């Protein structure tokens, strides 16, 4: 059918759908056109534009509207950012936060996935439904509820700490009255609570994905390993993990990408963009660009740095997915 010279028998098949499809090969491009235009205009063009903007000094919204000149400053924005000691704090916050969150999310998610696989049917369904609730809750309202749980007067955590025996609380923390305690005041505490919020929100996806992976592993393999006397730890690392390596790879990359650009949770927990010691790259970029006085060029250069970091991670992700599509 694919040869151009046809015998009389094959030319009789000329009107089959397959044949017809070959004739109208402009159709797929027409179908793709709206999608390509939208992705081009709303995602790819802005991506190029943010790079372009990072080379200009843009400190006035009128410049954006096109009413004023765009002074070209070359790499000055990058020089300013990279030379600023504060940028190093922000970068350190971002990397440490992402690393801690990816690690904790992966560990907790994997453990819960393994647990769901071992539980009885009804129990597994119940726990899975509860886990889904955490996943389904919007980042915004999830964060607001955690903020309420850590409220410094009537919050549950404040009450719990107040309920500790005074002597114990005194010897452990140096004070026994927790009412009015600033849970979000020190950067370390802030990041710990932010980690709690983010891990709470993201471990369900890992758990469900790991569970789906486990279901695809023939249970005989585990049984055989167990019969051979391997403990749970050994079974996981020698049987489960190697089999699910591609799944883990993708989950780690996705988590890394997500945890590098956490914004909503931080914005809500910090109550805006004023809490500079806890800045990470995405909120730093936003605050530079939109908090008065606006510095769109400077904000753009931070956004470019964030994008470049994620580009490396994305490269890994695409390679993994494509490899699996080939293997499939």
């Amino acid at each position, binding site marked *: 059918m694919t040869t151009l010279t046809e015998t009389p028998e094959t030319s009789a098949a000329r009107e089959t759908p397959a044949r017809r499809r070959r004739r109208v090969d402009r159709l797929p491009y027409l179908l793709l056109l709206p999608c390509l235009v939208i992705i081009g205009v709303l995602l790819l063009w802005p991506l190029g534009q943010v790079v372009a903007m990072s080379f200009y000094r843009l400190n006035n919204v009128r410049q954006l509207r096109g009413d004023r000149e765009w002074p070209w400053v070359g790499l000055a924005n990058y020089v300013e950012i990279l030379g600023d000691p504060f940028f190093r704090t922000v970068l350190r916050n971002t990397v440490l936060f992402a690393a801690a969150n990816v690690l904790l999310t992966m560990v907790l998610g994997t453990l819960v996935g393994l647990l769901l696989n071992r539980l009885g049917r009804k129990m597994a369904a119940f726990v899975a439904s509860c886990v*889904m609730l955490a996943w389904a809750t919007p980042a915004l309202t999830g964060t607001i509820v955690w903020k309420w749980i850590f409220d410094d007067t009537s919050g549950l955590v404040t009450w719990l700490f107040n309920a500790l025996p005074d002597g114990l609380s005194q010897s452990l923390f140096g004070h026994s009255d927790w009412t009015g305690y600033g849970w979000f005041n020190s950067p370390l505490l802030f990041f710990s609570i932010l980690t709690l919020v983010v891990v709470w929100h993201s471990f369900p996806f890992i758990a469900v994905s790991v569970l789906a992976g486990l279901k695809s592993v023939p249970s005989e393999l585990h049984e055989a390993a167990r019969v051979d006397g391997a403990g749970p730890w050994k079974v996981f690392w020698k049987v489960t993990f190697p089999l699910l390596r591609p799944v883990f790879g*993708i989950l780690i990359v*996705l988590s890394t990408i997500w945890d590098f650009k956490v914004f909503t949770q931080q914005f809500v927990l910090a109550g805006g963009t004023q809490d500079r010691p806890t800045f990470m790259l995405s909120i730093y970029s936003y605050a530079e660009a939109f908090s008065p006085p606006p510095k769109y060029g400077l904000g*753009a250069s931070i956004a470019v740095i964030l994008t470049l970091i994620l580009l490396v991670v994305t490269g890994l992700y695409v390679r993994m997915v494509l490899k699996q599509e080939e293997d*499939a």
Partner: protein
Amino acid sequence: MTRRAAGAGVKRLALNGAGLLVALFAAFPVYWMIATSLKPSSEIFSSTPRPMPAEPTLEHYRQILTGNLIPGVTFADFFLNSAIVAVSTVLLSGLVALLAATAVARFRFTLRTSFLIMLLVVQMIPLEALVIPLFLMIQRLGLYNTLPSLILTYLGFSLPFAVWMLRGFVAAVPRELEEAAAIDGANRAQIFRRILFPLVAPGLVATSIFSFITAWNELIFALTFINDQERYTLPVAMTFFFGRDDTAWGPVMAASTLFTLPVIVFFLLVQRRMVSGLVAGAVKG
């Protein structure tokens, strides 16, 4: 034998105990949000919190639904703004994604693989990095401070995943059905409308729910592109009116509950497909 049975019993107990702990950790905040929203203020601000509302009340719901947050604007108006934006996004993105998914799932053409790779890559673009250039675009288009600025933005954000997800549904429709219709003399438009569309409809619903959640939950762009308070979407209104200090937690939790419930319901309907969409072939069921 009995000792082994006892050992298995202890193990089962430990597993179930761990399961309950996980369930508690995951579901508690959602429970606490709803429970708080139903408590009278005296119970919310008491020094010993009750696990359940002793005298459940809808006063906080009444307050946010009827009270004016700013003169003439109630919670319902923000709800409506969010609904307009989310539904418009869903309709546009569903239509465009269906066309593109059909192209990818039904045709072999030169740039097919490149298009699929591009879909994967653009999903990884950090949207947070696009606030500044999209703000520029919205300013230039004269769309600043309008709901269409958000519809346009969310359309771009939801489209790549929608196409990625829908292409599986289109591919799952047996080709023979279309070929049979073609033999019966149906043209392409008829095949698309009468055969493909009805069979892909459930997948389209799933994809639409995903786009809906994307648009409904989004905060940063809505915060940046909308200036007039009466045009705020719900997330912006919530951070603006309720995110300040000395918060009235009763109304905040009532608003959060109203914001969250539709998402949870929709989410539970489609979560299975989200996993397979995101892990994209890594998991073979």
